């Protein structure tokens, strides 16, 4: 059977292989996705983001277990960073989800960010579609541990859960632009630690300034003890109802598709530019000159542009 049919019939190995092909930018994968894309869009996509060590994987594990009680089929995409030096990575999110490995209705895939900076990998959106077509009701995307500005997740999912922990900074951190703006639901994890209530209060104060109709709730959670998880799931479901009833979901999905198209075009242009046969040598040569002040980066940029052999 063709890979496409196998995927649509819920074949686990077909889903796994197709994600590999997409990650390796195999043109075959995109030909397949072109044919069956119209069947996707059924899964509800939840993003889990937050700083490293906040408990994203553990919380995902618990949320998924709660949803499994409702007999939902779940996909999890867990992204971890890739070394900028070797291209290697340690993908360790499964360690927190070992019980889920034996659940046939849960599919977990670990992805290296492979040089992508926004908290996801370039192939994450395609992987979401594959798990959607595989038949998942819910797809969780766990980002790499984020700092202040990795906001790609919000352009990829329906509900974004921001996982915070006590002790990372004061209320000035809470009002900064960037990741603190993208949460639809906030979890203050490790709530048994000192300062959890204060962290929640600071986030709440920040959120009180929001003018949007949806006021993100802030929930105290102890993921390892499964405390606050049911409440968090309720908030997620409420947000889902909100965006579905107000038409916000459609708006978001259109916006997300726009981002995706622009990203794909950008990637393609980047690939042309960095193609070894194209200008890599010139760029390397110019880099030395710019470093030794024999040239400036702005003129170098113009020179690369002029010499670009673009074969569109």
């Amino acid at each position, binding site marked *: 059977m063709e890979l496409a049919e196998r995927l649509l019939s819920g074949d686990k190995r077909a889903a*796994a292989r197709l*994600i590999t092909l997409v990650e390796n930018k195999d043109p075959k994968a995109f030909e397949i996705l072109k044919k069956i894309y119209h069947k996707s869009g059924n899964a509800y996509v939840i993003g889990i983001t937050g700083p490293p060590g906040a408990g994203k994987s553990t919380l995902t594990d618990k949320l998924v277990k709660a949803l499994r009680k409702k007999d939902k089929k779940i996909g999890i995409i867990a992204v971890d960073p890739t*070394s900028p030096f070797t291209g*290697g990575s340690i993908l360790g999110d499964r*360690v927190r989800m070992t019980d889920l*490995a*034996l659940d046939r209705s849960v599919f*977990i895939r*670990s992805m290296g960010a*492979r040089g992508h900076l926004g908290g996801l990998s370039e192939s994450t959106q395609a992987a979401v579609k594959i798990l959607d077509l595989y038949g998942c009701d819910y797809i969780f995307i766990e980002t790499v541990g984020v700092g202040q500005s990795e906001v790609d997740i919000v352009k990829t999912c329906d509900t974004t859960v921001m996982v915070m922990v006590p002790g990372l900074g004061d209320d000035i951190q809470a009002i900064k632009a960037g990741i603190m703006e993208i949460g639809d639901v906030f979890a203050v994890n490790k709530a048994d630690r000192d300062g959890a209530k204060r962290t929640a209060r600071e986030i709440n104060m920040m959120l009180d300034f929001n003018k949007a109709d949806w006021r993100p709730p802030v929930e105290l959670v102890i993921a390892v003890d499964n405390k606050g998880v049911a409440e968090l799931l309720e908030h997620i479901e409420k947000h889902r109802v909100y965006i579905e009833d107000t038409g916000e979901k459609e708006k978001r999905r259109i916006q997300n598709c726009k981002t995706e198209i622009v990203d794909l075009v950008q990637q393609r242009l980047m690939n042309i530019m960095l193609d070894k046969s194209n200008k890599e040598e010139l760029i390397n040569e110019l880099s030395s000159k710019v470093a030794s002040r024999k040239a400036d980066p702005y003129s170098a940029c113009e020179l690369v542009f002029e010499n670009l052999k673009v074969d569109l």
Partner: protein
Amino acid sequence: MDRPIRVLVAKPGLDGHDRGAKVIARALRDAGMEVIYTGLRQTPEQIVSAAVQEDVDVVAMSILSGAHNTLLPKVVDLLKAEGVDDMLVVGGGVIPDEDIPFLKEKGVAEVFTPGTPTQVTIDYIKENIMK
């Protein structure tokens, strides 16, 4: 080849020491591989399920408990039962030399015993992946 090799590093069975597994995971990372680390006390079923979902090139298992003759062949058999025929299965840890022929006969491609330089393992994987 410009795609990273994907390796599942797993600890089957009941021993609680994953220092060796972490050392090898780190060495493979530094060799440019994507290492999916699954943690301690994995059953063969969990390992195979993860290997299938992650579509890895290599399943690398570290075992110190002495149960290698049972657990490693079990993983090979379960992979076969899933229809997987293109994953390299390797083992490492405290495994007596006299057990190695048996493990190879059962489908474990190679066994790396204590003292093996990590580069040997890296080279073996690069030369032998089947995909």
